């Protein structure tokens, strides 16, 4: 009976304050979407790190005809220089840091290039001569990149030593920045959401002061009087959280659909991972709304 009564009160409260309730839903929706986006960006970073860090290589690019680096003053790399570099890689001083290496010839480099950009007109403007041959090295410990770089970058026939990890780090720094920005926006939006919930509950308490006054006088418990208001805020916030979760889910669908066809090598987070984020968003939205409502009622609803 009391439950039915409380549910009825919630229903009439939601209906009476419809426009405010809708705005609470929208604001929590937007703010929690940003929270979730920040969280999912972090997940994406971790996933890419796990995926790429095993695969990234240090590449020693060798001189070709058009190289301008200091070590390439004598023109394209000679067979002798190349064999010499191969021997250095086999030497114990270097070998202890690397697990294995392969040589990629200009022809292979051109083939890889053509595969990678098969849809792009750029392929037609590039010739095999323009691409450098390289040694591709898998490190035992990627942190030891510096040693390889120091050993090889001044060798004759070497144009440059590049660490793919550094390129990735730059991407991760950028993604981290984006997630910090998303979190910052989320915080501002959450403040808005809390203020809006506070105002909504206050208006709701005001518009139903006659009912609550009577409830008080006939001896209704604090719970029965306050619960409809609190649940009103919580329900609106949870609906917002569900919308946010749904939006994030759509984003993962898009990542794994269209986008993953364009970035074949990128491991995108899966839709299932939204299931980790969604409960957090719902708890966060519901919890904040509950606390905000409770504190507001303490001030504006005499019981």
């Amino acid at each position, binding site marked *: *009976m009391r439950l039915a009564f409380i549910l009825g009160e919630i229903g009439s409260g939601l209906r009476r304050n419809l426009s405010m309730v809708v705005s609470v839903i929208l604001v929590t929706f937007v703010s929690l979407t940003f929270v979730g986006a920040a969280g999912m960006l972090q997940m994406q970073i971790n996933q890419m790190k796990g995926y790429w860090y095993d695969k990234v290589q240090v590449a020693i690019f060798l001189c070709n005809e058009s190289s301008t680096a200091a070590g390439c003053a004598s023109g394209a790399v000679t067979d002798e220089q190349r064999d010499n570099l191969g021997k250095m890689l086999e030497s114990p001083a270097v070998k202890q840091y690397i697990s294995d290496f392969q040589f990629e010839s200009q022809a292979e480099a051109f083939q890889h290039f053509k595969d990678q950009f098969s849809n792009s007109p750029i392929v037609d403007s590039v010739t095999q001569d323009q691409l450098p041959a390289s040694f591709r090295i898998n490190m035992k410990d990627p942190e030891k990149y510096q040693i390889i770089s120091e050993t090889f970058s001044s060798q004759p026939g070497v144009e440059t030593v590049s660490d793919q990890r550094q390129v990735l780090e730059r991407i991760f720094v950028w993604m981290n920045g984006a997630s910090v920005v998303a979190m910052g926006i989320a915080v501002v939006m959450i403040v808005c959401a809390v203020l809006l919930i506070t105002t909504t509950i206050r208006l709701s308490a005001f518009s139903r002061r006659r009912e609550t006054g009577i409830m008080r006088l006939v001896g209704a418990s*604090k719970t029965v009087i306050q619960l409809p208001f609190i649940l009103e805020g919580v329900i609106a916030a949870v609906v917002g959280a569900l919308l946010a979760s749904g939006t994030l889910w759509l984003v993962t669908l898009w990542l794994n659909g269209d986008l993953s066809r364009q970035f074949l090598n990128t491991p995108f987070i899966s839709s299932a991972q939204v299931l980790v984020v969604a409960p957090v968003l719902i708890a966060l939205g519901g919890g904040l709304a509950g606390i905000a409502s409770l504190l507001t009622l303490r001030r504006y609803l005499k019981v």
Partner: protein
Amino acid sequence: MIRFENVTKVYDPNARPALDDVSLEIERGEFTFLVGASGSGKSTFLRLILKEDRATSGSVYVAGQNVANISSWRVPRLRRGIGVVFQDFRLLPQKNVFANVAFAMQVIGKSRSIIRETVPEVLKTVGLEGKEKRMPHELSGGEQQRVAIARAVVNRPGILLADEPTGNLDPITSMGIMGVLDKINQNGTTVVMATHDDDIVNEMRKRVVELRNGVVVRDEAKALYTSMIPVVGESRLLKDASDEELDRATGGQQ
């Protein structure tokens, strides 16, 4: 049933107290009028019984319990034992008569079947049989106040507080309301009614407690609205009044 011991209530430290050292006992089953000009402290007296306000000093006892010692989560229980009606009825405009009365039972968790059984009985007691489906705006003032009384007593409280219940009603309608309150009192409910309607008080001949500036200046059984001689801080009993005084006090209605 209700006992005030040296109760003082100060709202504003710069003004005189709303109640000033009031000591008073109201017995179970009694019908008491609380009379006095506007601002004399009648509503404050009733609010202290409900623990809507706290006494600045002194103690208020309701059913033997000092209300100051009732913790806030048990205040609802205190209030379930007390019905209240006001001058402005305070009905819920979007609910019909039945729903208005049922509301008081729903919010304290009474079952649907008990509500269906009790509400019609109480509506009959207050003389509103057959008007269950009416909306408040379809009722006269007197009928609205009857609904309010029904709502106040539907949970069978031991005490009924009425704060100027006839203040918005014409004399004849007021008498009807007094009949209802009297009937409820006959059923054993202690009734305390604040009013400054002299006709009603004079007609009913019940106990009269008169407040002036927060001080009890008179407390008489079976009394009239005004005592015969202007009183300052002391009371006279009705039996001591002269015939001439009685005549003047009742406006020659005797």
